[in-house]
């Protein structure tokens, strides 16, 4: 048993922290306000192989492991949850399924530029009527000669409108239920594909969340990902890994918030002494630190399992359930410790609390995680 990070992972943490301090933190409050997608930051991340950390070198990635990737999402999210989810959705939801299920041609054509960060990727499963009930897909794909014709609408798509490549799920055979769902690689310029409404959100405002509209959208037959009917399996296994990314994002938000708060309570004085000298507040800090450490262990454990080809679906669901609740709990308490200042935009706490909330919702709500965990435990 060994809880130490490898030398590579330790170095990656230092690099990511340094990068975040200099490139991410200084603009985090601004891009939250303006909802500006941090395109330049993504370019800088690409040029340092941060957009494909866990993808093998031969497919354009850094050849790293899942723990290193989780650390990268965690470190970036310490300062900016929006930038954290851009990285997570791109790597876990777009790169990974192509790596896992794609043909060699698909990997060369799409995964290499995605993992290098030349392309940005997104994943489209959710529909107006198919959220937690992802099996209720209304989008259809009909084979017509050497092309599929897609019709339907996806909503709440992270990196939507900013991405070059979309992994899209659609019904190819409604009579077969979930076994009638297939996955497709769709290029942004495909005829009949357009971007609809861009959501205005409570948090992670600099990340783009868009509606995708398919009107007789033409997708070449060779862009079918996996086999016809494998779509639901691809969607679910992709989300298993995606949850590690979101859990890491939640962990990062919580740990970034606590670090800001520790600085604050040491400086802020009331009744003639720093807040950090009040036992009632010390206990809150102790509980938060403990919760974050527990979340970190769950996240790294799930990532470790994924790296080492061990089962990780339940572990990822536990990590996401716990870490997202931790992020919400910690940011709420941290804001309380900041008092009135915490409620203003002069400090990052209100933004961190807004960013934290989404981690309990996307890539499976907390209730979905409980479904996944209980199904594994009660089987």
């Amino acid at each position, binding site marked *: 048993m060994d809880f130490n990070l490898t030398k590579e992972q330790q170095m990656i943490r230092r690099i990511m922290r340094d990068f975040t301090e200099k490139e991410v933190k200084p603009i985090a409050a601004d891009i939250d306000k303006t909802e500006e997608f941090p395109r330049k930051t993504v370019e800088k991340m690409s040029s340092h192989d941060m957009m494909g950390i866990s993808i093998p070198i031969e497919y354009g990635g*850094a050849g790293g492991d899942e723990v290193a990737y989780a650390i990268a999402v965690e470190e970036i999210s310490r300062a900016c949850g929006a930038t954290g989810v851009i990285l997570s959705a791109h790597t876990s939801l777009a790169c990974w399924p192509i790596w896992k299920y794609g043909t060699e041609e698909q990997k060369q054509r799409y995964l290499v530029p995605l993992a290098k960060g030349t392309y940005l990727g997104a994943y489209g499963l959710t529909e107006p009527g198919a959220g937690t009930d992802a099996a209720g897909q209304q989008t259809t794909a009909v084979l017509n000669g050497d092309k599929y014709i897609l019709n339907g609408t996806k909503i709440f798509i992270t990196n939507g409108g900013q991405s070059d490549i979309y992994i899209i799920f659609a019904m190819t055979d409604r009579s077969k239920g979930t076994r009638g769902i297939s996955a497709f690689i769709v290029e942004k310029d495909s005829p009949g594909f357009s971007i609809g409404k861009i959501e205005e959100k409570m948090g992670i405002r600099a990340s783009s969340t868009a509606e995708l509209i398919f009107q007789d959208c033409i997708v070449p037959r060779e862009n079918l990902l996996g086999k016809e009917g494998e779509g639901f399996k691809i969607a679910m296994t992709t989300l298993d890994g995606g949850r590690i990314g979101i859990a890491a994002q939640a962990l990062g938000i919580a740990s970034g918030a606590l670090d800001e708060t520790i600085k604050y309570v040491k400086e802020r004085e009331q009744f003639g002494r720093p807040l950090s000298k009040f036992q009632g507040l010390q206990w809150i800090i102790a509980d938060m630190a403990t919760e974050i450490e527990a979340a970190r262990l769950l996240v790294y454990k799930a990532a470790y399992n994924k790296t080492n080809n061990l089962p990780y679906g339940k572990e990822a669901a536990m990590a996401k359930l716990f870490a997202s609740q931790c992020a919400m709990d910690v940011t709420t308490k941290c804001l309380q410790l900041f008092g009135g200042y915490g409620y203003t935009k002069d400090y990052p706490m209100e933004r961190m609390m807004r960013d934290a909330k989404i981690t309990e919702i996307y890539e499976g709500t907390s209730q979905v995680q409980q479904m996944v965990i209980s199904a594994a435990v009660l089987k």
Partner: protein
Amino acid sequence: MNIIVCLKQVPDTNEVRIDPVRGTLIRDGVPSIINPDDKNALEEALKIKEENEDIKVTVLSMGPPQADMALREALAMGADEAILLSDRAFSGSDTWATSKALATAIDHIGNYSIILCGRQAIDGDTAQVGPQIAEHLGIPQITYVEELEIIGDKVVAKRAIEDGYYVIEGKMPILLTAIKELNEPRYPSIRGVYKAHEGNRVKNWSAQDIKADLSNLGLKGSPTQVNKSFTPPGRSGEGEILSGSPKEKAGQLVLKLKGKYLI
């Protein structure tokens, strides 16, 4: 063309504390980093490598075995080769013995055109090692470099001084010391991190490997020794607050300064 970059692993002084009794650094739990000025030296070497053909960048460090980490970070940034001088015989070296060991190692590497060092290390602040290496090797040096151009077998450097700069031309082989104004060091690439940890990317050299004269090394080879280090007590001289209108106060101030023959 071969460029050798000397770098030192130092405790991150942003997080370092001083033992109030012994006057020494408390290194426990303090992260180690590449000395910041040395990172600028490395960045400049990597820039030269990018802008010219056939450049090899070798990073060289003297330190304990864990200094290996700093060298691997340098490899992850893009250096081609890394050498760690590590031997009990080197321990306790002052700046003279350190520069002597580094110069001997550089001689051993041979065939170099440019040696780049940081101006000074944040844990010692002496700024002596770079210039001493040049003296040991008998080559020219330009210190405090804030801008650099390579023209054929010459370098043209802007050397910063307090209120301006010199533009100095020097012929290779030459030693340069970098200041932070020279450039903005890059982040190591993630792929580079993994490559830097493959196998024996860092060569370990002992005193014997570089055929060093043992009498020049370590405590024995060090003409200086630190007897004591301490934090000087704060000055307790009392200030004086002048009163009156700004004009009156200015007048009083001028009189007082004149009285002390300061103006």
